[in-house]
Structures are given as C-alpha cells and as structure tokens.
C-alpha cells in the first residue's frame, strides 16, 4: 500500500490536536518548557485547574497568555519572540540562570519539535544535510540534555513523505538518547530500553501500516488504546 493510499483511510491529528494530546501529559505543579512551533500551542490545551509554571529560555518563569490589545509590552517575549504576559508569581532572570535551570535538571518536562528521532531516543532538530538551510540551535541542546522528561511533537512523515522515526538519525544530532515520548499525528510512542513502544494510535490505523511509516521497529503495547482527539478548529 502506498503512503497516499494509507492516508486516505485515516484522519491524522492536526497540529493543534497533537498539542492537545501532549497537554494531557502536563502535570499539576510542574515546571515546563515549550519549544518553538507546535509545542508552544500546548499551553492552550492544559486545563486551568492544573497549576503549571512555564519557563522560557530568554529568562522567564511564569509565562502567561498573549497580552490583551493595548497591553502589549515589547520587552516581554517568549522563546518564539511572541509577545506574552507574566503571571503573578513570575520572575525575570538572566540567560546564565535560565540555562542553569535546564542543565541543572530543575525543569519537570520539556516539549520540542524535531526533524528526526532514532529508536534510541537520539534527537535531531537543529540542522539538516541541506547546506542551504541555516542551522539554528537556540536552547534545544541544553534543554534536551538537562531535562528528565523530553517529549517530541512532530508529524510521522516529512511534507515530502520521508520517514522521521529512524534506526539512526541521518541529520546532525542535538543530543543522544534523550527523547522519552513521541507525539505524532498518528500515534503516541514511548522510547524504552527495549525499543519503541506504541501506547496509542489513531482510529482505523492498522499497526502494520504504522510500522511501515517508521524505519525503526515498533512494538504495540499490550494495553494500547485508541488516540481520539477532540475536534479543534
């Protein structure tokens, strides 16, 4: 079966739905860093009765929602350079302190995007093999080596149909053996010492088909369940 045929029978998660799924794993009382791209959307789907302190690499703890019109402060931006607010209890600090929080294992969890992830949890998200794409690291290397729980949000395939879940990454690594859980548009997959384990997969997606969309070997957990996101506009 071709990839096009596979994709006509199923309904992959949207970017917002991937963020929604990751948000279910954000725990009350935690300190969380959200990377640029889909991960930034996660905060929108964390239920308000969880008290979560968001960290931003540029020196913020307690990042709040975007400002209301007329209340913007140009000096108050997040890692994606979007205007944000600071919640009561929030704080400002310099970059050295911010990265001490990362490397020093003070954050509870971090969610990032990726180009590729290997079956060992190797992460590649700062450069490709395309010499024309300007490499950019930002906080990704420090976040991934320092955090106990690194979650990666990405589509199962690239826009031109290339696999992203590989035996070994072909792009330059960000860090080795750091990814703990993958949230894709098709499945939730854990990186374990025994390899990749599928915890959840979307409706109508046969496991054998999901395996075709990963170069690395997958195993279906005995207690797997269906990944059913809400409709999100």
């Amino acid at each position, binding site marked *: 079966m071709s990839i096009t045929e596979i994709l006509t029978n199923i309904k992959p998660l949207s970017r917002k739905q991937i963020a929604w799924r990751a948000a279910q794993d954000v725990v009350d009382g935690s300190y969380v860093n959200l990377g640029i791209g889909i991960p930034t959307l996660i905060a929108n789907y964390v239920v308000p009765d969880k008290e979560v302190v968001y960290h931003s690499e540029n*020196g913020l703890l307690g990042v709040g929602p975007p400002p209301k019109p007329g209340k913007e402060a140009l000096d108050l931006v997040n890692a994606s350079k979007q205007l944000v607010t*600071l919640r009561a209890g929030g704080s400002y600090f310099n970059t050295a302190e911010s990265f001490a929080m990362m*490397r020093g294992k003070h954050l509870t969890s971090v969610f990032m995007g990726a180009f590729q992830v290997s079956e060992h949890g190797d992460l590649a998200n700062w450069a490709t093999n395309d010499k024309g794409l300007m490499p950019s690291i930002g906080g990704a290397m420090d976040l991934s080596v320092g955090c106990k729980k690194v979650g990666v949000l990405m589509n199962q395939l690239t826009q031109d149909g290339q696999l992203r879940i590989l035996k070994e990454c072909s792009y330059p690594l960000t860090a080795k053996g750091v990814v703990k859980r993958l949230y894709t548009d098709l499945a939730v997959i854990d990186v374990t010492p025994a390899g990749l384990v599928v915890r959840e997969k979307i409706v109508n997606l046969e496991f054998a088909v999901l395996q075709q969309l990963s170069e690395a070997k997958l195993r279906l957990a005995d207690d797997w369940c269906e990944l059913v996101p809400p409709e999100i506009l």
Partner: protein
Amino acid sequence: MIDKRMGSISETLQGLLQDGSTLMVGGFGDAGVPFELLHGILDAGARNLTIISNNAGTGNRGISALLNAGRVKKIICSYPRSRGAIVIDRIFKANEIELEVIPQGTPIERIRCAGAGLGGFYTPTGAGTPLAEGKEVRLINGREHLFEEPLRCDLSLLKADRADRWGNLVYSKAARNFSPIMATAAEHTLVQVREFVALGELHPESIVTPGIFVDRLVVIGEAS
C-alpha cells in the same frame, strides 16, 4: 567623582572601536537589543567585526544593518533562523559570512567564566554531536562532558532600562537576557539606557548589574 554618562552615541564609542573588534551584543529577538549603539557602530565605519549575540538580526536594522553593509566578518550566535531574518539568510546562502552556531547555554557560561576569571568548564551539552569535534571530552559521573573555554570581547553593547552615574543598571522585563553576563567580559562595556536617575535612587536590593562592570552610559530615552 565618577560619572559614566556620555553626551552622545559617537562620544560613547569614541576611541574604543577598531577594525577587527569583537563585539558582544545583548538581546533576544528585539528585546534588549541596543539598536542605537549598533547604528552608531555603523556610522563609525568599523570593518571586519566579529559579533557574538543570540540572534543575527531581523529586518534591516541593528545587526542586520551591519551585516548588510558588509562590516561583519564572523557572527557567533545560537539561533540565526527567525521570521524576518532576511539579511543573514541571504549572506549565509551566498557564503559571504562565517557563521558559528552554538548552543545558547554554552556561550553564556563561557562569557560568565571570562567575566569571573575562570578558565572554562565542562558541559554535557553538545556531547555526542558534531559540536564535540576537536573538543576535550571528559567522563564526569559516567556522562560525557565537553570542555569549553572562556569567551571575552573588546566591547559589550547593551541596553538597560535605568542607570545612575556609577553605572548601576536595572533592566526591563525579558530585555535582561544576556546583558548582565556580557557586561562582565568586555574590555569596555557600553550601555544605552532609557532613563538616568540620581545616585541612590535605584534600590540596592534591586540593582541587577553593579556599576563596576560598566564603563560608559548613554541616555537614549524611549528607544526604537
């Protein structure tokens, strides 16, 4: 009598800038970028500059203006890719710049070491990646660490919110980022500030950068 205030941008740069100078530039995105000092560098005409900053500019101003004018030989940054980073993207693709991309937590700590008189440090960041090439690797608690050396510069160009005549600084929100650390590792630290206040007006508990790290100040008012 100590008074670090200068009358203008050009006076602030007077006698300190040379061809081949290495500059650290504070800021993350646009927050904390000393645009007026950077445009002063452009006007001063220095060439073959090396710039150390988190980003590589967006639009046509600040670092982008220096890049566009061909004044920069090398830029060391963590995240040049940004919406609107048109100049760096163009000259990178045209191979007209030496671009060194490093993980953000490493330069800040290298700068901190230089400012604190330390000889470097070991970090797990970058171990097992292409960035480890040519670096000393040491196993600490069973984990690979890379040795990183201190990083100094000729001039640090920073932006703060308020300052007094001793050069004590307070920043605005997330505009602080690299600046308090960059202030410590330069031959000369030059700061543009929004507002100048009388000595004693900044509360000692709230001063972020003690004036010992600052050489010259210039009051810009509400910056661009």
